[in-house]
């Protein structure tokens, strides 16, 4: 391959006794060097680009107009409480002060989807809640993957489906409330569940007093309470 047949015939027809020379180039050092370079590039590069998740928070500016505030209808409101040790709790609607003692009636403990199929997972719960919209969107997604509809069409139609489900009060509005004992991964996982279950409206919020009280009662862990609440004798029975 890397040989050049060098049989130079003389120009004037004389019987030139020239040796047949084979020019061989030894490529071994070249290969060595290339291998080194490849190794260098393999160790120093990332082929995988990280993904990102877009998230928007409401502004901190005071809302002056009452009508500007988004009120979540009680029938669609779902609250997720992210607790210590990757625990996750949810309840529906709002809690009233007189119901603090009956926390077991509405506050449910559940698990992340990854942790086994046996117990109920948050994903199953949200999926059941959002079934109507999810099934429609999944149908569309299949069609998009089969290249029947374009991505823009898909996005536009998903929006319509989600709007309609919201109007018909069939889609849940999820309020994610990570406690101070939760980890960043819990928050991202919770947001991820929203994406997986195609939930259109969700927000990350701080816990209010009621959340902290029922959560500390349920888990027997006063750490969920604020300093002041811990000193309150009424809450520390």
């Amino acid at each position, binding site marked *: 391959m890397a040989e050049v047949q060098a049989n130079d015939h003389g120009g004037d027809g004389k019987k030139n006794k020239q040796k047949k020379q084979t020019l061989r180039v*030894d490529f071994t050092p070249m290969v060595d060097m290339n291998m080194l370079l490849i190794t260098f590039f393999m160790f120093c590069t990332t082929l995988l680009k990280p*993904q990102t998740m877009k998230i928007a928070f409401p502004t901190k500016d005071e809302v002056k107009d009452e009508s500007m505030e988004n009120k979540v209808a009680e029938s669609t409101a779902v609250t997720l409480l992210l607790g210590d040790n990757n625990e996750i709790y949810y309840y529906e609607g709002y809690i009233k002060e007189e119901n603090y003692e009956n926390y077991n009636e509405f506050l449910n403990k559940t698990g992340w989807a990854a942790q086994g199929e046996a117990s109920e997972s948050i994903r199953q719960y949200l999926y059941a809640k959002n079934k109507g919209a999810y099934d429609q969107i999944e149908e569309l997604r299949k069609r998009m993957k089969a290249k029947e509809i374009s991505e823009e069409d898909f996005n536009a139609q998903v929006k319509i489906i989600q709007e309609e489900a919201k109007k018909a009060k069939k889609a849940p509005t999820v309020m994610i409330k990570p406690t101070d004992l939760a980890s960043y991964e819990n928050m991202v996982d919770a947001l991820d569940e929203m994406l997986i279950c195609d939930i259109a409206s969700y927000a990350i919020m701080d816990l209010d007093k009621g959340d902290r009280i029922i959560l500390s009662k349920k888990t027997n862990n006063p750490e969920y309470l604020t300093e002041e609440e811990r000193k309150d004798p009424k809450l520390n029975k």
Partner: protein
Amino acid sequence: MAKAKVKKHSTFIDMTAMSDVTVLLLTFFMLTSTFVNKEPIQVTTPSSISETKVPDTNMLTILVDPSGKIFISMTNQDQLLATLKKVGEDYGITFTEKQLANFARLKSFGVPIRSMPNFLDLSVEKQDEVMAIINKPDATQEDLKAIGIPNEDKKGADGVIAETSEFKRWIRYATEDNKELQLAIKSDKNVEYPVVKKVIEDLRDLRKNRYLLLTSLKTASAN
């Protein structure tokens, strides 16, 4: 004695084909790769199903370490330099040309502004040594103060913010002339939520309400 005739075989292996292959591979790696950015700390980002890619330009990344230390990197080094000068002005610090050149070389930084000139005068190895303190298990609080961008607001007696934190200044100056700048938060998955919350609250104070959370990919479906 009859000698056994051993045929002389040439052991020459033709490496041309091999060379062709390696050159091809090399070309592939050179064209597809992006270099790993040197970051002061290693973080494992949480995973999500989101498939949005990280933008290549106009992004500011806020790196949050498990102990709450903040580091900043930016895709555009010129803007970062301009920001450095502005933050320095606030604290009455001016940088020499050499320091600025050293700063431009840093991919990611996290030092209080007051120790920045000294830090920039150090050689790259010494800088790494300073940064390595974060990985030492026996580092005291006092040691740890030397790195990370401080994000504690100084509050007056009445609870009103008297002096905004360095972190807020960095973000404010970086976004001042560049409204399109995207803010990305990169944090280890085991970071406690309050640490991230504090960063987000600071950004919200500056009326920055949209962020990108850097994640790695996983796949899942609802049922």
